[in-house]
């Protein structure tokens, strides 16, 4: 479990391929309301932010689950819900600060990203790479480089200022 689903909202173009592919993979239908990922949009400001479970190290959902249905998949690192144990109390959805768990009343269940068993379909479909399934070390490096780039632009501005 050395990889994480790395989200870079600045690269998101808002196309919703992640939602579409997610629902087609998991539910065998296209229905964004059953997708485990959702792109929150502020259209009039041009702001798009993919929202999906971040697979916390200390998952709040796991802590609040009264029946112990939530555990970590050691192979993928995903926090997963055992549907045979889950009683559908929705406490996980209620307490998750990242909106990582969604309520599906039609089937009386919780929808939550399981990293597709180690090969997330959303990341595969995300050509602009707003979603990437990469090693944590790689993700760190990418963040550092992006920060450094911004810093270098600032430096350039300062050095060329009259």
């Amino acid at each position, binding site marked *: 479990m050395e990889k994480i689903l790395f989200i870079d909202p*600045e*690269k998101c*173009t*808002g*196309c*919703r*391929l992640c939602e*579409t*592919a997610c*629902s*087609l*993979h998991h*539910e*065998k*239908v*296209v*229905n*964004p*309301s*059953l997708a485990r990922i959702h792109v929150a*949009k502020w*259209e*009039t*400001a*041009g702001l*798009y932010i993919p929202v999906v479970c971040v697979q916390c190290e200390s998952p709040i959902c796991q802590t609040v689950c009264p029946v112990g249905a939530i555990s970590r998949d050691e192979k993928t690192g995903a926090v997963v819900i055992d549907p045979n144990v889950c009683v559908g109390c929705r406490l996980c959805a209620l307490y998750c600060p990242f909106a990582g768990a969604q309520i599906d009343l039609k089937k009386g269940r919780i929808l939550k990203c399981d990293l597709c068993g180690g090969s997330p*379909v959303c990341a*595969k*479909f995300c*050509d*602009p790479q707003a979603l990437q399934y990469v090693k944590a070390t790689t993700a760190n490096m990418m963040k550092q480089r992006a920060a450094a780039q911004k810093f270098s632009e600032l430096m350039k501005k300062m050095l060329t200022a009259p």
Partner: protein
Amino acid sequence: MVWSRKIAYINLSTGKVEQKPIPRDMRTLYLGGRGIDMYLLYNHISPGIDSLGSDNVLMVGVGLLDGIPCLGSGRCDIAAKSPLTGAVGDSNIGGFFAPELRLAGFDHLVISGKAEKPVYIWVNDGEITVEDASHLWGQDTFETQTAIRKDHNDDDIKSVVIGVAGENVVRFANVRTGMKNSAGRTGMGAVMGSKNLKAIAARGTTSIEYAHPDELLDYCKEMNDMIIGTRWAKAQSKWGTMIIYSNTNTTGLIRTKNFQLNRLENGEDLEPEVIDRYSFGTSGCYGCVVHCRHRYTLKEGDSEPIFGEGPEYTSLGAFGTMVNCTKMDTVLKANHLVNKYGIDTLETGGLIAWAMELYEKGILTEAQTDGLKLEWGDEKVVYELIRKIALREGFGSVLADGFKPAIAKIGKGSGYYAIQVKGMSNLHSDERPTPSFALGIATSTRGSDHLRSRPAIDLYGLPEELLEEIYEGPVTSDSTRYEGKPRMIWWQERLYAVTDSIGTCKFQTVFCAVHAPKWNEFSKLIQLATGMEVSKAQLMEIGERIYTLERLFNIREGFTRKDDALSERYFKEPTPIGLPSAKGKTIDKERFEKMLDEYYSLHNWDQNGVPTKEALERLQLDKEPSHMI
């Protein structure tokens, strides 16, 4: 399943809504989207009706493949008799509305009658209601969408709306969704306005089932890789359609000062790279890996910055080259204004450029233009005319009726300077050096248009063998020649008709990219998504059926071979500048007519452009109107 998606008939005069299934036969003959819309158009609109009266019928159609995760499969087709041309009115719109409508349970809406007061149609998980829109009347296209979301307390509602221009029945008012997408052409917004219909809003949470979901998912990924693997899509994902400017303004294929030049002097500020000054990222339609538009902010003095999306190559022409404005600032601001008011960018630019040339020639004077000096390159005049057109104020109201009525009103030979076909403005591309493009705009069923049949790859000078393989017959590689060009147009017409009917994006088929998904890929996608087996040959026949039915509609409205024509200037005035392939060119009248003959015979239409009995029988059009739906 796609098959469970319904058609709804909404009568705005009575408020009655009727839902029906869509027969499978309809799918095998017309697929969906534009195809079924054209069937409905031919069947539900009586000949000779007033396009702005209650007899006109507005069609909204979701493409057959809408919703699948590839090729920008979120497209919607909006049709009616055009108030701009009197011919087929039909415009295709991207964004996110069509998938939402389908998720709400509907693939087609047939909207008839006229509401007594402003209304909007609300479609939500199988239910359709007609809601009061008096609080939305007067709001711009952005405000309207936000207000509808507020009405239902749901940020995921998608709507197609009209702006103030549609309310004022400007004959080229468009229908808009999101920040950028427009069903821009043929005045579908005017039809909505004439019906007191401010918007159609949808929200859906039902599931779209597919015949082979796992294989479909894999194949969609393959399709996305295929399109983004082309150089065209890669360039477009960075610069949008603005990338075309780099080529056309270098070679001399771009109309400037209406029709006087074919290259913009000092046009460096309109180069696509300039958008970096304003952009903070790109934006994509539903299911699209190409994301061809920029999200930009424009700051002017102390006023609040404008946020907009785009601009398209079309706007670089409309508010750049055509009116001789050389600043990206002007294009971005004008782009924002037309989007806000809800008028077609292309038609608006075409009309303003025409008026400027008339002013220069002394045909128009300040007495007729409300005191405005219509000088080339004056951006303030451009902004003011946009406002006047949208609000139908003074001289703006003359232009707001489009070319044909404006020519009649202004007179004095003004028609000679109007660059239009069937009453609709040409794009700002200069077709004099490219006979294939010229034939395409002349024959387009919805009036002058580049999206009906343009073989853009004709410009690449590709090996003849490759072109003959694509176009399945003798064609020429040299874009300045006339031979073989009718075949290119005929092939593209059918491809685009099918693309508009399955609901994917034209930029993700053979438009500018040679190695893009086309017939066989579409055939496989249809099979995996719906289980329907449609061969390449059958798809081509469906394309032919749709295009021929459009032709029949126009013939019924009185259009003839004479209307498949170009402005006289194409034959008389040679292009003044450009590279050797573009300089000194006119369209040769005799060879143009010969192309037209050949084009008609490829379709199996007679020399007046009327489909033969044999053609109609083969395409099962001989019994139309058949009123199946």
